[in-house]
């Protein structure tokens, strides 16, 4: 008994915890997706609140849904249901700025041979072209607040309207937002980006994954610039991407796409049929990661065959978007990121020594600092500078902050 008492006294009873603070049995917020039916159904969510300067004069950051990416509240709910091993039903709905909830993805994935990494997806599917369109769709994988120009900046082209003359097109240079033309719909509506990061196309997609090579191809209703749920011109887009992984952490990709761009209301308004009015695009992308670094770069070239009424002709207008971004983890909680971005347009020959670009070239630089409050809750602060060769506002710097949470 004496010995027991002695041991009790020598016990470290005053040291409150041998393990540290009491065991945290529950995170303040869910840490992972909610799963049910023995894991066959998983549901995730994302809430992103971004606050920043208004952009309703320069329209550098407006989307084709007419929201400012630097001043947006977005709620997304995604789910994957896999009733059997070879079938999955995947979907996501979103609301931006508390507007109507829209379906952003809704497709069925089938793996015909369970032992072969070959999958077919049908529905509103992720883009085959490029890399950012699939990755940037979920904000947690976008290391910056802003979007790459090629995926977000609104050119002066529209699918449902066309300029009658070259002068009509040039008048819309550098607006970054709504354009209006005399052919087709005459309501002022947003132009299109080179590739939409905010809408996905509808169709069929096949993907095969080898040891070092992936191949993805799809046939869809819309185009990269104008993804659609329903057909508007009877044409289909064919797009493909080849990815090569020569070593761990390095991915090299090459993409191509071509599809009918203009709405039939535009082509039927022309005096005669002039064949195809397509968007054709080529892309290259690279990703390299090692240690605390993540580097990504992408190049997108796009050509539209634009019909003009006077003179009755078709002119090819081109755009080239290129960006490079880097992310570096300074500490477990602090991440710094930067992106240098350029969107350029081809020139039109409108007179002696007068060859303006058909839209105003834009250069964008952005730097962000992110602080991880917990693993899936991050606060970001960004400064973004834009320069444009035309338009009412040619240069503007934006400051923005963002709180993003996902599970």
């Amino acid at each position, binding site marked *: 008994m004496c*010995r027991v008492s002695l*041991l009790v006294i020598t016990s470290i009873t005053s040291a409150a915890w041998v*393990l540290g603070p009491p065991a945290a049995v529950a995170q303040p917020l869910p840490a992972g997706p909610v*799963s049910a039916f023995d894991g066959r159904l*998983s549901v995730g969510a994302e809430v992103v609140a971004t606050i920043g300067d208004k952009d309703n004069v320069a329209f550098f950051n407006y989307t084709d849904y007419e929201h400012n990416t630097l001043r947006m509240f977005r709620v997304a709910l995604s789910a994957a249901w896999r009733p059997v091993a070879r079938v999955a039903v995947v979907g996501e709905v979103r609301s931006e700025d508390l507007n109507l909830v829209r379906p952003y993805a809704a497709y069925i994935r089938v793996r015909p041979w369970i032992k072969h990494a070959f999958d077919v997806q049908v529905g509103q599917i992720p883009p085959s072209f490029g890399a950012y369109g699939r990755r940037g769709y979920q904000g947690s994988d976008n290391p910056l607040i802003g979007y790459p120009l090629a995926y977000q900046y609104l050119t002066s082209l529209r699918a449902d309207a066309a300029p009658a003359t070259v002068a009509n097109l040039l008048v819309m240079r550098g607006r970054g937002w709504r354009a209006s033309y005399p052919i087709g719909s005459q309501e002022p509506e947003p132009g299109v980006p080179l590739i939409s990061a905010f809408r996905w196309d509808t169709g069929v997609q096949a*993907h095969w994954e080898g040891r070092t090579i992936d191949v993805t191809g799809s046939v869809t209703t819309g185009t990269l610039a104008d993804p659609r749920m329903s057909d508007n011109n009877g044409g289909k887009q064919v797009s493909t991407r080849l990815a090569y992984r020569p070593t761990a952490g390095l991915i090299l990709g090459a993409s191509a796409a071509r599809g009918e761009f203009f709405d039939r209301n535009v082509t039927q308004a022309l005096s005669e049929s002039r064949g195809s009015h397509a968007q054709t695009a080529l892309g290259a992308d690279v990703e390299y990661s090692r240690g605390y670094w993540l580097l990504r770069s992408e190049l997108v070239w796009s050509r539209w065959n634009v019909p003009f009424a006077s003179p009755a002709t078709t002119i090819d207008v081109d755009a080239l978007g290129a960006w490079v971004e880097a992310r570096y983890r300074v500490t477990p909680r602090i991440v710094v990121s930067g992106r240098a971005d350029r969107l350029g347009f081809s020139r039109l020959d409108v007179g002696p020594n007068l060859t303006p670009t058909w839209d105003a070239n834009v250069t964008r630089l952005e730097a962000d600092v992110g602080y991880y409050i917990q693993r899936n809750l991050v606060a970001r602060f960004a400064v973004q500078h834009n320069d444009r060769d035309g338009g009412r506002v040619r240069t503007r710097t934006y400051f923005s902050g963002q709180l993003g949470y996902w599970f």
Partner: protein
Amino acid sequence: MRSGLPSARLVFIAVALWAASTGVIPLATGRDPVVNGTIRGRVELRQPPADLAPRPHVGDVSMPRAHDPTDRRRSVVYLETAPRAAFDRRDEPRAKLDQRNEAFVPHVLAIVAGTTVDFPNNDKTYHNVFSLSRARPFDLGRYAVGHSKSVKFDSPGIVRVFCDIHSHMSAFILVFAHRHFAVTDDEGRYRIDNVPPGSYTVMAWNESAHTESRRIVVPDSGGDVEANFALGRQ
């Protein structure tokens, strides 16, 4: 021959002193010898936690790769307070938290403070092990298959470990200031050996439930003391 005897005698005395000091030969004290005991029992989870599912990535163009299920049934049983001797650090222990088939193995690792944990990547893909835990925040960066990095855990606490690339990968490292703890086996059983006689609070922890405690006494005569737990909502 005679010149060697004093040396042999010294060696004998030294061995006897070492044996007595380490407990191999008990010294006569005039009291009954004190025998250390064993605390053992079982931790039952009323609602066994499900496997961790990957976040639904709508941007994927193929079925997610199969990954090993995460064994979230493991619990850790430990003494809330312990005899002073249990806090002694005698060595530089090492442990391993493996990365295999998109899972950390084991999912729950219990170590004593001062342990260095190796994080080998024995998977087929890149991983980025990190933790934001207050007890020991760290980030090992991205490293390829066949490489390993290590972290030393000096402070007691709970360290939750994640992979920055694979959302369904997670693990717990419980760092203790003393040596009296155990991780449950497949059946939920545990066994903490070599506990000196005394009165203790035994704690049972599982990631999916509130921690529970029991008061137990290890008698002077040692032996087994049983403490069973049922964690989670009834």
